[in-house]
């Protein structure tokens, strides 16, 4: 696994909602095959960062580049086609489409299409291809979200609170899947509260508090960092 090639570069990103800075001058860099944990208390700006990079929110300032290509403020479908995809904390499959169709529709604009059964196999949903969405368990819906993200042949996937509600066995299963994605060169930004799961899947973490990046480094160092401890344990968070 190489971690030398820079994929995603976020520089001085600021997102403002009605005068409130939900993201304040955030900068980070992600490399090919890297898994970065994005952590912070509720309201710290994690989802705002994901939504801004994915084009759902327009940034007030800053730059986002993917492999040197400026994608700042581009439309969500252009960003997805460029190679940034995501999952949702609460999976949002297309409810009137079958499992197969959910993945197929996500692969239409992929530059390098993989067969749908192959994608479903990677997330252990091969046997559910013709299922309607209602028939899937919560864990299967989360894996379908991953399959849909994979279908666009992504370079970067934002994985938003995948672990919530999963059993230990399911957690191990998705951790292995994420490791496989990384081996194929996909970089991950994992938004997560479950530290045990983060420890399994990421190399380093980026900590947000009140919209600002306050720490970047290994999870072990983060846990001993005074400011991180104050934010998580000291009740000083004000966003």
């Amino acid at each position, binding site marked *: 696994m190489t971690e030398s090639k820079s994929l995603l570069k976020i520089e001085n990103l600021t997102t403002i909602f009605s005068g409130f800075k939900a993201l304040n001058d955030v900068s980070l860099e992600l490399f090919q095959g890297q898994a970065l944990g994005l952590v912070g208390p509720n309201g710290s700006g994690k989802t705002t960062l994901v939504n801004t990079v*994915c*084009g*759902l929110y327009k940034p007030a300032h800053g730059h986002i580049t993917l492999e040197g290509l400026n994608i700042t403020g581009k*439309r*969500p*479908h252009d960003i*997805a*086609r460029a190679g940034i*995809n*995501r999952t*949702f904390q609460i999976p*949002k499959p*297309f*409810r*009137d*489409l079958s499992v197969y*169709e959910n993945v*197929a*529709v*996500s692969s*239409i*604009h*992929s530059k390098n299409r993989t067969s749908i059964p192959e994608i479903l196999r990677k997330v252990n949903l091969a046997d559910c291809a013709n299922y309607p969405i209602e028939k899937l368990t919560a864990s299967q819906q989360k894996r379908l979200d991953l399959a*849909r993200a994979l*279908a*666009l042949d992504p370079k970067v996937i934002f994985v938003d609170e995948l672990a919530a509600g999963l059993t230990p066995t399911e957690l191990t299963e998705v951790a292995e899947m994420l490791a496989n994605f990384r081996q194929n060169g996909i970089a991950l930004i994992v938004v997560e509260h479950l530290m045990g799961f983060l420890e399994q899947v990421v190399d380093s973490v980026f900590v947000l508090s009140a919209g600002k990046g306050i720490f970047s480094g290994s999870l072990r160092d983060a846990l001993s960092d005074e400011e991180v401890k104050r934010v998580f344990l000291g009740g000083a968070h004000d966003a």
Partner: protein
Amino acid sequence: MLFEYAVIGGILLGIFYALLAVGLNVVYGAQKIINLAHGDIIMLGGYGAWELYNTYHISPILSTIIVIPITVLFGYLLNRLIAPRLVKASDPEMLSLILFFGLSEVIQALASLVFGSAERSLPVSSIPTSRLVLFGQGYPATWWVSALVIIPLLAIFVIFLYRTSIGLQVRAVISDSVEAAVAGINSKRVSGIYFGIGFALAACAGVWGVFIFGGVSPTEGAAITITAFAIIVFGSLGNTLGTIAAGIIFGIFYQLAQVYIPSWSNLVPYALVIATMLIRPQGLFGRRQRIA
């Protein structure tokens, strides 16, 4: 014999009513709004057929095809004009109702100016005229010819929606336009095209409405919109196949009422909406929504 006549006639007319309603359902799917000008688009389709026949002697069968690209383009451009405003509005449903009510009034006024307020009709000789005889009962040429034209049209539409790549994208956008955008789909463009297709289906229904309603006039739009609305509520809002089935069932009900209780038959659309709301609010083919 009267019952068989009503049922067979109802199916033939019901195919027309399916087309009449499906366009409204499509526009709802594309933008999650009720197009109050739906009946007026149907009326414009009728005037289009009337003009094409009277000026160029073009058969209504051919007119059905001619109106499609024109109305797709009109619907697409209208969608691109209004959709960004609806997205930014604090109350998009109310704004859309006001916008389409206004559009309905404008279309009515323009139709009155251009075509006059008198009803216009097409001669039955503009289409094949032989009556259809089934089980000893004759059915007007306009009923079976319209059904013969509309069935392939609806079949093409269903194939487009369920068997093509763009149809798959349309169904994804209908399900969740934000999620579709994250999946790489240009939701705005796909919505716009689908919106235009809704207008085209309405205009095609308008061509045959000239025969089924006995003519076309500038003020007919509101009543047609109500009928179409009743059918899509009955079939389940947003469900295309449900709307088509509901259109046919509506045709049968309407024809049965015409045969047995003719003076009450115009109440059928209203009775259908009220009965659906009371007995099965999600519509005949809809799934019950879980409120979390």
